[in-house]
């Protein structure tokens, strides 16, 4: 799929301003650019797990969505959109609907990796013609930065606070994209805000127009939770990719494809340093923690290279 940046930017906006996400939020950057993957003229029903995005984009009576939108609860965005897609199939079959609709649901990492995991797994396994988009900011940001299974190791969160006996979260992130790929769905991809959104746009379009279930995992930094300088979001994303913390890949019909390999893999410190949640790692005596973090990044990167080389 060719990417014409200007034409893509010229498409009508499908997320209206006036929503109440924080200034500089990565979540809505993800949403706007995913929705640009929709072809003009195609209609969509957007689903949404409870979270920042939901309470901020549909605060009665103000909806920021230009398409039909349903929020149900925290843990059931997958199941809810399954029902919407089921209704579409039934109404089409009965000749009650002619228009083409696409189905896209958004969830944060809490609603996707954790509480909504079963519902997501079910929807993926049933292979509904839908896209589940996780805007992964690595914690329960809506309730005030609590750790999730997407939170990276050693992150300082309000439920894994750094203290005299604690270096933050003790466990590694769950590799959700790999888990969803194991559901044998036709399309899984991981992306973030780099390359003028080319990678994200192409993946969104593929996810939306691949028949069957698709999953997009998008790293969407949260300035509050990550504690970086808000205007620097694009730089943070680039560092995430160039340190191989957040690799860009696709799994198409079971085939793993690496989309980007940095010419020079940067040390993980470069990604960690600008973020307040990792500040403690840079105290003298904590060098071994960064070393461990690096080892985990390396291990996962090597595993990914291996999968993609097969």
């Amino acid at each position, binding site marked *: 799929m060719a990417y014409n*940046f*200007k*034409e893509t*930017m*010229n498409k009508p*906006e499908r*997320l*209206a*301003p*006036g*929503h*109440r*996400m*924080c*200034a*500089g*939020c*990565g*979540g*809505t*950057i993800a949403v*706007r*650019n995913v929705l*640009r993957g929709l072809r003009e003229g195609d209609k969509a029903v957007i689903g949404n797990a409870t979270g920042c995005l939901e309470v901020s*984009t*549909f*605060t*009665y*009576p*103000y*909806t*920021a*969505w*230009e*398409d*039909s939108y349903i929020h149900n609860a925290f843990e059931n965005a997958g199941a809810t959109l399954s029902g919407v897609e089921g209704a579409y199939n039934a109404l089409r079959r009965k000749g009650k609907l002619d228009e083409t609709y696409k189905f896209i649901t958004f969830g944060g990492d809490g609603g996707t990796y954790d509480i909504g995991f079963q519902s997501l797994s079910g929807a993926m396994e049933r292979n509904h013609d839908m896209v589940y988009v996780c805007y992964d900011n690595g914690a329960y940001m809506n309730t005030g930065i609590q750790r999730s299974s997407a939170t990276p190791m050693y992150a300082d969160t309000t439920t894994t606070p750094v203290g005299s006996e604690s270096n933050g979260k003790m466990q590694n992130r769950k590799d959700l994209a790999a888990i969803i790929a194991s559901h044998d769905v036709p399309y899984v991809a991981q992306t973030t*805000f780099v390359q*003028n*959104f080319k990678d994200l746009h192409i993946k969104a379009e593929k996810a939306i127009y691949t028949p069957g279930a698709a999953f997009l995992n998008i790293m969407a930094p949260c*300035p509050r939770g990550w504690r970086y300088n*808000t*205007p*620097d*979001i*694009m*730089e943070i994303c680039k560092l995430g990719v160039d340190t191989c913390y957040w690799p860009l890949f696709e799994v198409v019909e079971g085939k793993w494809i690496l989309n980007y390999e940095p010419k020079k893999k940067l040390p993980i410190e470069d990604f960690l340093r600008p973020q307040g949640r990792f500040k403690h790692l840079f105290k003298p005596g904590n060098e071994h923690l960064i070393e461990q973090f690096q080892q985990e990044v390396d291990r996962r990167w090597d595993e990914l290279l291996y999968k993609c080389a097969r």
Partner: protein
Amino acid sequence: MASDVNKLGVKTKWQDLTEGMIIVGSGTSKEFKTGEWSSVKPEFIEDKCKQCLLCVPVCPDSCIPVKDMKRGAFDLEHCKGCGICVKSCPFGAITMEGVK
């Protein structure tokens, strides 16, 4: 019939709320002016702009309108002044107090 959000204020009687709290229509959030959240705003220096549109996708608030492949003035009624667009511009066409 589309819901009239201007008639659904915090003084609205229960009889006049929408059934099931649905909103018929779309994009009604435009009526909510988030521009009031911040006094610091980006400034668009049109002369320096090469219309590369790199600032467009980075805005979390859809505040850089594009028409006929060209960006227009900032929607300052909704812009929250996050400053991301300032950094996205390769030509120095966007400035904002406190953002280098």
